[in-house]
């Protein structure tokens, strides 16, 4: 940082000050916040150039691009915060095409009055997640909205990545006979968030599974280039993700409840709140669909990766014009696993 000339005589006091309207006005206050907070923590050559865009060379081939807005409440939760989530969310959306994520951008919409100490904590966590993933934040934007017109901070990240040759992963490619895998325990993120939500605080050890999955995907794609579908089951849980894929591919699916991995404490929390873990959000899990002949090999590769140790085969793709997802329940009956309607709400009786 020594090559940046000292343009500001007094440094921002991150411990005591709050974001005000001047931090988004385009003037010196904004320039100082960018320099002393964002450039400082996200530090990389492209960002330090100080341009309104990042310019870089890319290899020839298929590129993917994805964007994700993060509006999580609470901002800090067991196992992560909005900053790490904003990195993982977009890295994962890129990775689900089989691509290697290369660069991220970050747009911050901050509410007037937001404590800089919290903003710095978020930016630090975001920088740590980006460094760990090896995917730098190379350009960004900061806006401040009047008090009452935001909810602390919203972060939008956009990413780009490059798909290796011979990989063609898409939600359209699920074929009857294919096998459905999940990379680990479901529902951790949603339950961790709920446990800290106002009015609903309960004691639990459950932490969000928020994680960047691109290294897991890289090893999966290397072993089985012909994976048909990959998707991270975030909002709406694995039920929403599987319904999306079944609609895109015009197929049905059959799941086996007893094979779906759920932590006992997540199952207990869901039981208490009247929620169904199939619909609870994940931020560090993926669903993979591949042909029957590749399934065991893929499962083995997933289990060898630290983020896939509890991976399991949970069902198969079937022929069904209606696109129904049915599940053999642990109890021995069967049911439809439908889309979530509205929000999942705790039951009364």
């Amino acid at each position, binding site marked *: 940082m020594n090559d940046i000339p000292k343009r500001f005589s007094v440094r921002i006091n991150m411990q005591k000050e709050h974001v005000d309207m001047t931090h988004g006005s385009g003037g010196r206050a904004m320039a100082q916040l960018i320099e002393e907070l964002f450039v400082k923590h996200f530090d990389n050559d492209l960002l330090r150039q100080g341009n309104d865009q990042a310019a870089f060379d890319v290899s020839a081939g298929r590129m993917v691009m994805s964007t994700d807005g993060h509006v999580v409440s609470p901002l800090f939760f067991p196992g992560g915060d909005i900053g790490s989530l904003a990195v993982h969310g977009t890295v994962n959306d890129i990775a689900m095409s089989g691509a290697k994520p290369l660069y991220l951008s970050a747009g911050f919409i901050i509410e007037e009055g937001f404590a800089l100490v919290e903003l710095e904590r978020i930016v630090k966590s975001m920088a740590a997640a980006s460094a760990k993933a090896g995917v730098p934040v190379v350009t960004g934007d900061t806006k401040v909205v009047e008090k009452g017109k935001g909810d602390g901070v919203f972060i939008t990240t956009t990413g780009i990545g490059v798909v290796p040759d011979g990989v063609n992963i898409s939600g359209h490619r699920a074929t009857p006979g294919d096998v459905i895998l999940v990379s680990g325990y479901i529902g951790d993120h949603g339950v961790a968030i709920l446990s800290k939500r106002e009015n609903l605080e309960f004691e639990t050890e459950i932490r969000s599974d928020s994680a960047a999955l691109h290294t897991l995907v890289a090893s999966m794609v290397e072993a089985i280039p012909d994976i048909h579908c990959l998707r991270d089951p975030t909002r709406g849980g694995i039920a929403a993700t599987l319904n999306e894929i079944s609609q895109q591919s015009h197929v049905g699916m059959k799941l086996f409840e007893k094979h779906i991995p759920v932590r006992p404490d997540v199952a*207990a929390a869901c039981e208490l709140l009247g929620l*169904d873990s199939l619909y609870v959000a994940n931020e560090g899990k993926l669903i993979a669909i591949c042909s029957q002949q590749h399934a065991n090999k893929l499962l083995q590769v997933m289990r060898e990766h630290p983020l896939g140790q509890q991976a399991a085969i949970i069902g198969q793709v079937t022929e069904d014009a209606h696109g*129904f997802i049915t599940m053999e329940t642990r109890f021995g009956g069967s049911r439809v696993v439908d889309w979530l309607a509205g929000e999942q709400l705790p039951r*009364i009786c």
Partner: protein
Amino acid sequence: MKYVDEFRDQDLAKNLAKSIASEAEPSRTYNVMEFCGGHTHAIFRYGVQDLMPENVNFVHGPGCPVCVLPIPRIDNAIELAERDGAIICSYGDMMRVPASKKRSLLKAKASGADIRMVYSTQDALKIARNNPDREVVFFAIGFETTTPPTAVAIKQAHAQGLTNFSVFCNHVLTPAAIQHILQSPEVREIGTVSIDGFLGPSHVSSIIGSQPYEYFSEEFQKPVVIAGFEPLDVMQSTLMLIRQINEDRHEVENEYKRVVTRQGNQKAQDLVGEVFELRREFEWRGLGQVPYSALRIKQAFSQFDAEQRFEITQGNGKDVKGCECPAILRGAKKPTDCKLFGTVCTPDNPQGSCMVSSEGSCAAYWSYGRFRLDGESKVAAE
């Protein structure tokens, strides 16, 4: 997991299924009404019907707390929410239930009304304490299970001298509703609904006990088995009902002994008795006016009664035309008998209350069971 997996054991289920299949006489049909939405939910979520022989049918009753609330009462709640400075606190299930003019609490919230989703009456009290210059109204709904917490909240508000807290009371009573169903013309005269026995409420009975059902099992000669909400409870209780029907008995039996006693929870009953009294009649969606079937707040606590504190209009909001919720709640029709089911009415776009709550039979049919439907047209409309 303790007390969860034990009651969902597949091997025990298979054994029970075998007993049911061997004891249900092939020459007769067993129509079992599960009163509670909790049972309906369990039957569909775990696929209990799959384990039943063809002549054992579940008839879904009106025991879904949000389903039975008539439209004018929801309109009233929305009117309360639209008052200047008011905050309405509601259980989550209630948010999406359609009121008249295609409105709902959720839509009123989107248009600016301050409506908060709460998980308990204590949340509502906290909101009242934190907003002393606002009128905070708790939209109280539900059967005997949710009534004691409302009584506690009113007593606490009284003790704490809260002047900005009130309750819009819509608590209803189970035995009165069951009796009303048995007296309905469809059951008594026309015979279009034949109910051979009841799976009695589980959580409700933990409060009121099994005794209140003794009158009508005797009067209407129908067996009642108080059943827990777990799928094995439902199967075991169904077997107990089949045995009673086979032996021509009509008794109140208690399968849910781990929670329910004959007398119930005396302390909770006393609390409710202290704060609430019977209404002469109350309108239920589907059942119409049912005598002595609901509670109102006693005069001693009238300052906490939203109906006395604010002007409540006697609305006449009606169900959407063609919606069969009323008949479905009485067990007279199945969700699939409704023309709106799966066409214009789905959980994403509910026209009637039964499609909203996860305990409503239409929502359960749609979300868990529609792959069973015969008519291709229903699913093609998706």
